[in-house]
């Protein structure tokens, strides 16, 4: 098909300097995306990155690919529309936990139902960063950021648990400061032929002083185990092969469910599910083609349809 030039992460850097706060986890995610895109090997103009609204949503400006800064909560339908109309595009959607799980909730749970080949990266920082420190739906009950007058009176939503229930066919979780494994996860998500969601634990040093970089790096006082641990090293395998039967699928989902419920002392990273048993959405159709002849006359022939409405 295309001749793929050899690319490196630099090819995906933008002239625009990122204006995130110093120490923000978003920098790590940006870098991982650049590396993954380089590994994927598609030229920047064949890649479209859609951003929601939030600190996270600014990511597209800092990539040399096409970048579309959409509306708060609407990043998924924008991205899906582009992919449906031009299946040759590689499409990434990036957004914050507020964007995806609050205002974007209806899209979040419906976006994977066609299993269209896009990758959704959700930046989980527990907070509304851009609007200066209100609770995001990922902040836990009773937690209180320094910007909040009272502790949160709402239970947290678990992004990947919701994604499992919504039928995303690839689920992964990375950490903003584990650059290498994060880049690898982004690449895997990109290569997955269906709707993939990658949650990234993203410290927001400015507003979230609970789930900080230090907190994530802690080890368990008794066991000495790190808080963040890679699923793969614990023998976990989330792959559902193309021909899997219902029993296998349900067993895999149950195992995934159990891991997704881990939070706090131990938080797994890696690929929770890679479901190849679901049909991917057809990639035919769409595309930008001529609709008129050079004289501007429509190429559509409607006579076949007229025949059904015509009298006599």
């Amino acid at each position, binding site marked *: 098909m295309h001749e793929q030039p050899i690319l490196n992460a630099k090819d995906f850097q933008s*002239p*625009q300097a990122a204006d995130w706060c110093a120490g923000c986890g978003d920098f790590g995610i940006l870098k991982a995306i650049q590396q993954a895109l380089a590994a994927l090997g598609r030229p*920047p*103009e*064949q*890649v*479209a990155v*859609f951003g929601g609204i939030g600190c996270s949503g600014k990511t*597209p*400006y800092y990539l*040399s*690919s*096409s*970048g*579309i*800064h*959409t*509306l708060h909560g*609407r990043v998924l*339908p*924008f*991205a*899906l*529309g*582009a*992919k*449906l*109309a*031009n299946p*040759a*595009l590689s499409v990434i959607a990036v957004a914050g936990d507020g964007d995806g799980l609050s205002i974007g909730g*209806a*899209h979040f749970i*419906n976006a994977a139902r066609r299993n269209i080949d896009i990758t959704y990266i959700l930046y989980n920082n527990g907070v509304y960063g851009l609007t200066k420190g209100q609770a995001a739906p990922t902040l836990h009950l009773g937690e209180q950021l320094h910007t909040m007058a009272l502790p949160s009176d709402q239970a947290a939503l678990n992004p990947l648990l919701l994604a499992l229930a919504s039928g995303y066919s690839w689920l992964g979780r990375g950490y903003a400061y584990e650059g290498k494994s994060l880049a690898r996860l982004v690449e895997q998500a990109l290569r997955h032929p269906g709707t993939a969601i990658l949650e990234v634990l993203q410290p927001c040093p400015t507003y979230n002083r609970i789930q900080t970089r230090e907190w994530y790096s802690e080890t368990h006082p008794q066991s000495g185990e790190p808080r963040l641990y890679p699923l793969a090293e614990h023998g976990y395998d989330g792959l559902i092969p193309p021909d899997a039967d219902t029993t296998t699928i349900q067993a895999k989902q149950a195992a995934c469910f159990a891991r997704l419920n881990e939070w706090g002392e131990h938080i797994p990273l890696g690929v929770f599910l890679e479901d190849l048993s679901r049909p991917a959405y057809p990639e*035919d*159709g*769409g*595309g*930008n*083609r*001529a*609709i*008129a*002849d050079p*004289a*501007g*006359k*429509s*190429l*559509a*022939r*409607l*006579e*076949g*349809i*007229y025949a059904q*409405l*015509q*009298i*006599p």
Partner: protein
Amino acid sequence: MSHPIIHWRIGGAQGSGIDKAAQLFARACVHSGLAVLGQREYHSNIAGRHSYFDIALGVEPPTSVAEYPQLLVAMDGESLFRHLPMMRSGTTVIANRASLGLTLEKLPYLDAPLREKLRHDYGNELSVQKMIDSATGRGVTCLSVDIEGEQARIAEQLERPSKEVKRALNTLMVALGGALLGLGERALQTAMTKLFPRPEHRQLNAATISHAYRLAEAQNWPCGELAAPARAPARLLLDATQSVALGKLAAGLGLQSYYPISPATEESSFLERYPSVASREGEPFHPRIIQVEDEIAALSVAAGAALTGVRAATATSGPGLSLMAEGLGWAGMNELPLVITLYQRGGPSTGMPTRTEQGDLLFAIHAGHGEFPRLVMASASTEEAFYDAMEAFNYAERFDLPVIHLLDKMLTTSLASVLPFDSQRVPIERGRIASPAAGEARARPFQFTSDGLSPRLPLGQPGSAHWRTGVEHGESGLVTENPQIRERMMEKRAARLAMILDELPEEAMLRHYGEADAPLLLISWGSNLGAIQDAIARLEKGGHRARAVQIRILWPFPSTAVEKALAGAQSTVVVEANHSAQLASLLQSQTGHHPDHLVVKYSGRPICGDALAEALELIANGNGEARMVLKNPYE
């Protein structure tokens, strides 16, 4: 029955075959070489409530149905209670003899105010018979038929169970009406054959039809003879949802997203039936029709598609547009071509989903916070809807902005016979598309140019990687808060409104009807046009000369053209199907002209030519009030 246009009506319970009856009748008329225009009224529940269908027919295409029909075919007793008061001297009713004894008390669904009104007008202990007597007294001919008896005879003749024969009640009633009007039996039989594919149904309906014609003859009904033109041209029989869908296909639609909503859904459902559309060259087209989770997603998916350069659209109704307000602004800010087909319905809020209204004009013009350009246009008829749907994409792409194409519930149930649309009449104009030279600096989607339009950059083309954003931006699509760039971008976006008015031919913006020097000027938009044309013809018979201007592009408002049209008018009347007279306020804000009269209707029922003519006659005679409301408690 010597009028060139005949107004027929059938009434009955929702689900009792009213639609099929009207289809049959309309098709038979078209088979006879006549043109038809239909209009359906129904409640927003699924079954049981009263519904009726008007059809106007003539050698020349009718432009309006009537509030006061010439022939009423009543499928049930409720129809007689509801419609007899609307029958005027010289008109005819066909009724089922069995319903004559029905009393008002027995109707479960009749709304209380109508019940009261009937009691008030016709007295207590009201029966159908009493109403018929009153109608007969004012010169209405009432033909009552022993339907059960006749159906029993048909059953006997066909040797089929009477339960089956009863199902063809609608055909029987249509055929009786057809016989009375002088509609050829052959035409009705031909139309029936198309509508009933199953042989057993055909046999039953064929027998029913011929039985009806024999009966009318036997009973010496005063049957007319329909003027049938020499040659019956092939005609499409469709409503505006279908003509818009066809127009979109002709325009090369790439993607349509939608969330179901009355009365817009039909358009998308129709499109879904054609996943493959033949092309004059090469592969067929595969427009993607995508049902999504809500109208916010519908707008966003269409916008995402439009970014890739395909022609993208969505279709909705008022509540959907409310939810699209934010996305609309994004499209405006991003200079993105996008078509939103808006089928207005009775508002506000959930309102009256199956009734008509022109209540969303000012909202369409102002929807979305902040200031951004858009084009708002309105079609007046099933036929215009096709060509306008094509033009909508042209406007969107020539001027790089979202286009709202207004229709309404009335047009979605206006069954019209039209000559097949010429999909090549409207040339396809795609505006300026960028061809970035390889190796150039970053592509600039918002490039400043002399005319303020930036060449369009579809996603995924070589050398065209770029940014877009709803945040204020510079030429590159990167965010800026610099006051100078902000000002230039606001000016760049706004400038295309003047450009539209400069570049579009006058007839795209407004159309004139009637004689240029007629003293009475009717100003309107959208679906009222047909009633206005009809009313002008009626006024002429009464010796009053009127003309009309139909405003087709409502935003940017074609002030200069409208002001020209206003010149010479002795009296101006704005006609609208809403409460607050939105066009009138737009007219005043954009031209300073305050119309002499308003004629509005907001009961959820469409404006019809006959009732409108009566109001206008008062105006023409100097007896019209400044604000006149068309009301009809029986509709």
